Every structure is written in structure tokens, then in C-alpha cells.
């Protein structure tokens, strides 16, 4: 197998992964909009963020660049904080407590 074949196969696999991630994003979007309960929506939004990180990583492979690595980390951090805020809102109804406990 020559190196040209290798790059060709890598590109095909990356495109297949992009399509699979996009289908997963659409399904998660349906779950986030019509999910019966609020925890369903929280989990769906969390998974949407993870899929976005995968999408950015795949696009970084396609474009052959390392500039997008920071973006993956950035999405991960914002996703973490958003998930904490959603979880705290579902559990307590208030995100930033005002009173000392």
C-alpha cells in the first residue's frame, strides 16, 4: 500500500465519520427539543457539545492543521461549565447562590 493510498483511505474514513457525527447531531437535536423531561434535555445538550468537539477534530484532520486544537479545548471547557449550570438549575432552581450556607 503506497502512501497515496493511505491518504485516500484516511480521507474516506474522515468523511464517513463526519456524516455519522452529523446524523448523531440531528438525532440529539430532536431529543433536546422534544425530550419529555428536563434531564433528558441536559444530557442531550451535553452530548451535542461532545459531538461538536468530534466534528472540529475531524475538520482539523481534513484541513491538516493544528490551529483547531485550541478550539476543541475551548468547546470542552464551555460545555463543562454549561453542564454544571444546567445541573445546578435542575437540582436547586438557582445557579449562583446569594446566601451563605
Amino acid at each position, binding site marked *: 500500500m503506497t502512501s497515496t493510498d493511505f491518504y485516500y483511505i484516511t480521507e474516506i474514513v474522515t468523511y464517513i465519520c463526519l456524516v455519522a457525527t452529523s446524523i448523531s447531531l440531528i438525532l440529539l437535536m430532536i431529543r433536546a427539543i422534544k425530550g419529555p423531561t428536563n434531564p433528558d434535555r441536559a444530557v442531550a445538550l451535553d452530548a451535542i457539545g461532545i459531538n461538536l468537539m468530534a466534528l472540529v477534530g475531524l475538520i482539523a484532520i481534513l484541513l491538516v492543521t493544528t*490551529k483547531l486544537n*485550541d478550539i476543541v479545548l*475551548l468547546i470542552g*471547557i464551555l460545555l*463543562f461549565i454549561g453542564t454544571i*449550570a444546567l445541573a445546578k438549575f435542575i437540582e*436547586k432552581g438557582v*445557579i449562583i447562590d446569594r*446566601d*451563605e450556607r
Partner: protein
Amino acid sequence: MHGTNDLILRTATVLISFILFAFSIYLFLAGHNAPGGGFVGGLMTASAIVLMYMAYGERAVSKIIPVNYRFLIPTGLLIALLTGAGSFAFGEPFLNQTFGHFHIPLLGDKELATALLFDLGVYLTVVGITMTIILSIAGDRE
């Protein structure tokens, strides 16, 4: 309501918020030749502070970081304006920028640009506006 058990969140916040501050400084210094800059760095700093607010509550964090975020907005805008007007002193057009290579001990040959000072103004403004909006919404009483 009974007290919630958020020991893991509080312990992890101590570590994670400092990682976020370091990442925001990295993003701030990586600007104008790579992804990053004052805006994203400011947003990262604001999210680190918001994480501390979420874990420890408003009163504790206000004691740790006694900063009135409203004063950061005019300070940042003033820094940005002064760096823009500073190019008049050298007979250049408004907001003109320059850069040079300097040898810094321990760091080696680094490129320093005057755009970094403008980015500092953007950074302070973004932190001020984001924290003002979030704390105003959080402090809203029924």
C-alpha cells in the same frame, strides 16, 4: 431546601479554575497570529470566575475577588483608546501598529507587538461586561 452535597464540585473547582485562568492567559498571548486574542481570553477568564461563583456562592467569591466589574469597562475602553491615539505621537495614522523582536531572558527571542496593548483593553472590557451581565441577572430578586 436542604443543603446539597457538592463536595466534589467545590474540590474540583479549586483545581479547574486555575487551569482556566492559565488557559485564558495563553489564549490572550497567542492572539493575532494564531487562534486567540483579547476577546476569547476575556471570555475564558469570565467563565473561570463564573465557575467559582457557581461552586462557592456569591458572598464567598465577592470576598476573595473584591473587584467591581463595572469599573473594568471604562478602564479597558480607555486603554484601547490610548493605544489607538498613541500612534499620533509617532506621526502615524490612528490605530497604527508596529512590532519588534526582543531577546527576553529564559524565553528567548520573542515578537512583541503593540497590538497586545490594544488586546489588553479588549480583554478588560470583555471581562467587565460579561461579569456585569451575569451578576446582574443572578442578583435579580423577585
